[in-house]
């Protein structure tokens, strides 16, 4: 199933990064099939905030610009709406590639704005602690760390959510939490060795 455009007899060192990204993506990325048509950027609701449109980023991947790619804000600005994936004429799994690039950027310590990665990590920490997401804890911890000055502005909305009984101040812990922690610990271990 996996389609590779590099023939083994003629390896192009620039394409090694493309191969690395493709191999690190769950399933088959089809990233090699990109024809640079730009349908992805044209369908993207957040392209205006991106350092590079998805099309441009994939050209950079192909050109082997490892560091610039992993420093790009593009995967972090992606809202995971999958519009590009539906419309891509080559069926490139664009959103999955964005997830791959996020993981690679975290591991290479090349993405410097910690807001989005730490939000993901806080979310995962909550799941590890309770087995479920804990919206109140997630929001307050995130704002305290990254936007403490915005907290006073958020207070009326937070209060509105509380009075309308739409925020639980105490988290619910599932009964099978030990089992769930074991699943997560093993998954992380296997992911690192994969």
């Amino acid at each position: 199933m996996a389609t590779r455009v590099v023939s083994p007899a003629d390896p192009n060192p620039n394409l090694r990064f493309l191969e690395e990204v493709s191999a690190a993506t769950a399933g088959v990325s089809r990233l090699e099939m990109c024809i640079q048509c730009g349908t992805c950027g044209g369908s993207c609701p957040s392209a205006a905030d991106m350092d590079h449109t998805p099309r441009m980023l994939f050209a950079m991947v192909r050109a082997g610009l490892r560091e610039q790619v992993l420093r790009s804000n593009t995967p972090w600005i992606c809202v995971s709406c999958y519009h590009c994936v539906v419309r891509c004429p080559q069926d490139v799994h664009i959103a999955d590639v964005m997830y791959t690039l996020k993981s690679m950027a975290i591991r290479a310590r090349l993405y410097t704005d910690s807001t989005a990665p730490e939000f993901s990590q806080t979310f995962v920490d909550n799941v590890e602690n309770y087995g479920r997401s804990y919206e109140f804890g997630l929001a307050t911890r995130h704002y305290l760390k990254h936007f403490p000055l915005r907290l006073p502005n958020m207070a009326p909305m937070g209060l509105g959510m509380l009075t309308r009984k739409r925020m639980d101040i105490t988290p619910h812990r599932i009964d099978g939490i030990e089992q769930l922690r074991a699943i997560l610990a093993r998954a992380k271990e296997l992911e690192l060795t994969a």
Partner: protein
Amino acid sequence: MSAYLYYPGCSMTSSARAYAESLAAICAPLGLDLEEINDWNCCGATAAHSVHHRASIELAGRNLRLAAETRLPEMVVPCPMCFNRLKAAVRAYEGEGRNRYAVQPGPFIPRISDLANFFAAPEMLERVKGKVIRPLTGLKVVSYYGCMASRPPEVTEARDPENPRSMDAIMEVLGAEVIDWPYKTDCCGASQQLSRPDMMAQLVGKLFDMARKVGAEAVVVSCQMCHANLDMRQERVAAHWGRPLGLPVLYFTEMIGLATGLPGAASWLSRHITDPRPLLSGLGLLDG
């Protein structure tokens, strides 16, 4: 009574309480018995598979295993994000690489259904229609589907991912005036709500602007992430855009409850930040 498995997802117990309460209320009159999976865990959402792909599949794998124990053939999921993650996990467990996962759901996997699609099945629409005693006459709405119930279609198995119809069909049966509009499946930016609120305000503003332009008085949703994002932040978005928004955002389940004359409607509707009660009372659809 027809029995189905039910996976609520985390926000149904907090920010989406109105969704949970209205769903619970409409089931019995419609002859539905939703059995909540015992001790379910978080689906992992976007955050988990941003960081750990394997963990995101195995988190869902534990839920699938719990679901399989009940032997019920179909599981309904109100949250499109949970729906999407559970479907993605089923796909992984049915695919070639299934043996690489440490957590296995077992041989039997129930069918996973998006709640809005479940209610839009012809037989369910008939049931709903038979219970409407207070049609939503005069209520002009747009249906807003967002991303996760439809895309990517190889995961969701959505028949028409660019133009879903489930909530339009439900709202029509309830007697509302459903207005067609181009942003049914555009993203509201909920995933960036905490990281990039400026981006979120831009995307939400675009949706409200169009909804108002086509003449809608309210937005009907099935996604509690969209609901939180559209309902809670209207003041901020209005400040960003420099014009008022003020469009109530309603769950389709609340509207089924309202049109079928259930007494709880006023209570669910009181949980919204953008208060829908003046609009609904003004149209004579809500007492008081």
